């Protein structure tokens, strides 16, 4: 079997092999396996010592930060306080200085007393208790051998655990489902005991011994659990429920939280009371000896067990589930169900779960209930996308402050204090955050710091330049600054300059000195109502009007007008080189003028062919960066593939100026489609496990991962008003994506948006607005708008 060995992080230590209850649904005593009959009742001193030794060597060799040890049985409290003390002592000593030890015990609670709890308090052992709900529910299975109820004794144990002195040890309640019980009564009974968490277990069953379904419904267990979910929801979801949280996690792209759900590789091993090392013990419900490995703690390291074929079979992620499951849209959430529940005598574990229909109904039921809540507003609301992306930029700034951890010295501290003072709602920080390459600067600097790149700290100190530029852009240095930390106006901001050049992001570049001895230093930049003043030692103060180019001041130009939105033509920012093609150096005035005219022409086309799309672009874009020609954009390429290096704030597009207005209109739509998806991917989880599945892409031979399919669809949907063939391909791609298991709830919601976009297509009559005679390259356009803006000699 392929793949690296997965170390064990969770050890189930069977400290006692017998139980003082006789629950008729117990997988240890009542199912196929009878190995318990031949085990010693309590774990021996020798087995305890060897377990501690093996665990410590395993944690050390795999550099595990933590390991969990779950004291289990039978009924672990029957081992007695003396034996349990020895277990805790040996494990604690062995793991000391090696890894964090997370000790837990799972008990029926009958024997729980202050004597045990004081011991657990001493060693930090958290306590989980089995309880199947209200008395009627609990009595259905959890009885003594003579039929007596255990319910009052369990409640007494929980009551003890809830006392203030022990409450910190209270882990929660574990409930085995029986659909004959009233789900609401069960949940209410559990909730009444204020458990820190709850989990619901499907009763162990296999295809050989299927679960009871009294009414014949294939989804009876899902229906029961969803009734609990609804009750949980009504109560405000105040108690974490592992089963539900796991589904909610996977629906949003996260991992499964229990071995019974999700595709995470198993990382747990069982140590029996005789020192035998076994696979997860739920396998005991499959057949006699199913969990055995032939290894023991006395002679075998944990690594040998980790390489056992039975263990490896549950570490294969997607390859570890049956063929039917592999293409099921909900497999990321259910993971094919608990391994034991797949067993049949004929095909062993190569089956769907005996709870397959229930699991699918449960996942879909939760998704249907929570789809709205689990979808970030950014997926459906362009303003929310912009806001959320700016929140990300702000988080990057906060993260930079933390990563510097004093290394930025007084220069950083001064700039940071100013940022804090300008923050709450002030226009200056809005201006900083809305400059797309501030985002790029932060990502590059953080990546540089993490890599120990020389110069990364100097890069960080550019914060003051961003703040000075933002104060100028905000236009009003005395703008509402928080009462919390008032900033006097005007605020002179010390900004470092290099090579005699003072760079003010989004504004321009000022030459202070010719290259030479004074080429590096610090200038004071003061925002004023009609521009800004720069004071540097060794020269007289310079008053700058941002929009007026001079011999020393090269402003970031603005293009647009005549119906087009005003956009920065940023050919100066040092971080602008973050697109698929290289950014061009500073344009000469004629080139800039060509951009201006071409944008005006392209916008007129967009407003005619795709007014809705044109309005969306106008609301979102702030910046265009000219790129080198000759580079063909790669459909499906995502900036997030090279995190920390590429990437920019929402609102920037990098485009090579094409020869015609129509081509620029196409380039704008396509680039915006890419930029919007990239921004979304940076603030929301649209898919998970990218690359685990391959999908046909209607525009090429061969199959592609979901990231490429979605990116290609997004770009083609954006181009739809000008490209009917692309729109057709986008529709085909969307159909494929509908069943893609990788998509999260947010990803599926995006599909709905894309369908809506395709259906409307932004045309003036809502019918698609596309001239079917013209292609996206504008070469054959006959709509009268194809090449009217072409420049002579600009092929």
């Amino acid at each position, binding site marked *: 079997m392929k793949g690296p060995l997965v170390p064990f992080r969770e050890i189930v230590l069977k400290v006692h092999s017998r139980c003082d209850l006789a629950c008729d649904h117990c997988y240890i005593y009542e199912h196929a396996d009878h190995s318990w009959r031949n085990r010693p009742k309590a774990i021996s001193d020798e087995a305890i010592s060897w377990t501690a030794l093996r665990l410590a060597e395993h944690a050390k060799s795999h550099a595990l930060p933590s390991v969990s040890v779950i004291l289990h049985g039978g009924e672990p409290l029957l081992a007695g306080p003396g034996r349990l003390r020895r277990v805790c002592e040996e494990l604690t000593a062995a793991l000391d200085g090696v890894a964090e030890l997370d000790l837990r015990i799972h008990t029926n609670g009958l024997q729980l007393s202050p004597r045990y709890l004081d011991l657990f308090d001493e060693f930090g052992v958290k306590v989980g208790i089995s309880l199947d709900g209200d008395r009627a529910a609990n009595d259905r299975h959890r009885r003594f051998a003579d039929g007596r109820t255990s319910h009052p004794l369990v409640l007494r144990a929980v009551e003890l655990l809830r006392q203030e002195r022990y409450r910190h040890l209270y882990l929660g309640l574990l409930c085995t489902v029986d659909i004959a019980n009233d789900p609401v009564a069960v949940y209410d009974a559990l909730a009444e005991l204020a458990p820190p968490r709850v989990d619901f277990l499907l009763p162990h069953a296999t295809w050989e011994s299927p679960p009871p379904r009294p009414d014949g419904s294939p989804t009876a267990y899902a229906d029961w659990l969803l009734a609990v979910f609804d009750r949980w929801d009504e109560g405000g979801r105040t108690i974490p429920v592992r089963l539900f949280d796991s589904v909610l996690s996977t629906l949003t792209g996260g991992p499964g939280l229990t071995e019974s759900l999700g595709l995470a590789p198993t990382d747990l091993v069982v140590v029996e009371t005789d020192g035998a090392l076994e696979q997860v*013990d739920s396998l005991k419900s499959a057949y006699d000896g199913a969990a055995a490995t032939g290894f023991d703690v006395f002679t075998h390291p944990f690594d040998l067990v980790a390489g056992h074929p039975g263990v490896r079979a549950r570490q294969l992620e997607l390859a570890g589930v049956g063929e039917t499951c592999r293409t099921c849209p909900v497999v990321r959430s259910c993971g094919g169900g608990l391994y034991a529940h797949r067993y049949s005598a004929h095909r062993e574990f190569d089956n769907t779960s005996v709870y397959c229909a229930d699991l699918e109904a449960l996942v879909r039921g939760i998704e249907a209930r929570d789809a709205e809540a689990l979808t970030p507003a950014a997926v459906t609301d362009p303003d929310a996308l912009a806001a959320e992306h700016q929140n990300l930029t702000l988080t990057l700034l906060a993260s930079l402050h933390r990563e510097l951890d004093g290394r930025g010295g007084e220069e950083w501290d001064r700039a940071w204090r100013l940022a804090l003072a300008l923050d709450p709602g002030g226009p200056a920080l809005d201006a900083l955050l809305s400059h797309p390459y501030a985002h790029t600067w932060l990502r590059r600097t953080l990546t540089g710091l993490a890599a120990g790149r020389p110069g990364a700290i100097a890069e960080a100190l550019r914060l003051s330049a961003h703040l000075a530029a933002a104060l100028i852009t905000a236009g009003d240095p005395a703008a509402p600054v928080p009462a919390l930390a008032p900033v006097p106006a005007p605020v002179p901001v010390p900004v470092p300059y290099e090579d005699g050049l003072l760079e003010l992001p989004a504004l321009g570049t000022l030459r202070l000195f010719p290259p030479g001895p004074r080429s590096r230093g610090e200038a004071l930049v003061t925002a004023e109502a009609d521009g800004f003043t720069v004071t540097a030692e060794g020269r007289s103060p310079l008053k700058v009007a941002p929009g007026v180019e001079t011999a020393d001041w090269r402003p970031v130009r603005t293009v647009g007008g005549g119906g087009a939105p*005003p956009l920065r033509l940023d050919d100066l920012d040092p971080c602008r080189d973050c697109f698929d093609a290289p950014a061009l150096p500073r344009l000469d005035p004629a080139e800039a003028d060509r951009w201006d005219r071409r944008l005006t022409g392209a916008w007129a086309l967009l407003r005619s062919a795709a007014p809705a799309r044109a309005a969306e672009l106008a609301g979102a874009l*702030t910046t265009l960066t000219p790129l080198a020609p000759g580079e063909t954009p790669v459909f499906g390429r995502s900036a997030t593939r090279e995190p920390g290096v590429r990437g920019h704030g929402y609102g920037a597009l990098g485009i090579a100026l094409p020869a015609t207005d129509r081509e620029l209109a196409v380039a704008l739509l396509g680039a915006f489609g890419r930029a919007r998806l990239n921004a979304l991917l940076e603030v929301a989880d649209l898919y998970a496990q990218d690359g685990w599945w391959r999908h046909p892409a209607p525009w090429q031979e061969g199959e592609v991962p979901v990231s490429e399919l979605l990116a290609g669809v997004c770009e083609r949907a954006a181009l739809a008003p000008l490209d009917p063939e692309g729109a057709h391909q986008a529709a085909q791609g969307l159909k494929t994506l509908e069943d893609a298991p990788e998509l999260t709830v947010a990803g599926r919601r995006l599909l709905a948006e894309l369908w809506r976009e395709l259906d409307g297509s932004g045309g003036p009559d809502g019918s698609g607005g596309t001239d079917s005679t013209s292609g996206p390259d504008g070469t054959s356009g006959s709509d009268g708008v194809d090449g009217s803006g072409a420049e002579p000699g600009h092929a």
Partner: protein
Amino acid sequence: MTIQTIPAFAAAKKNRVPLAQIDVRGAEAAKRLARVLPTTGEHTVRSATFNSAL
């Protein structure tokens, strides 16, 4: 070509957490940053997943 001010996203301000209140050590910030920064390989403590216990 015109020279004029580019409006910042007016709408982008909604629900912004103040800079000083961002808990960069918190789970929410970590999740946010992980989408755009290379993973640090930082070891994290994982919660137990054993089905028959909490």
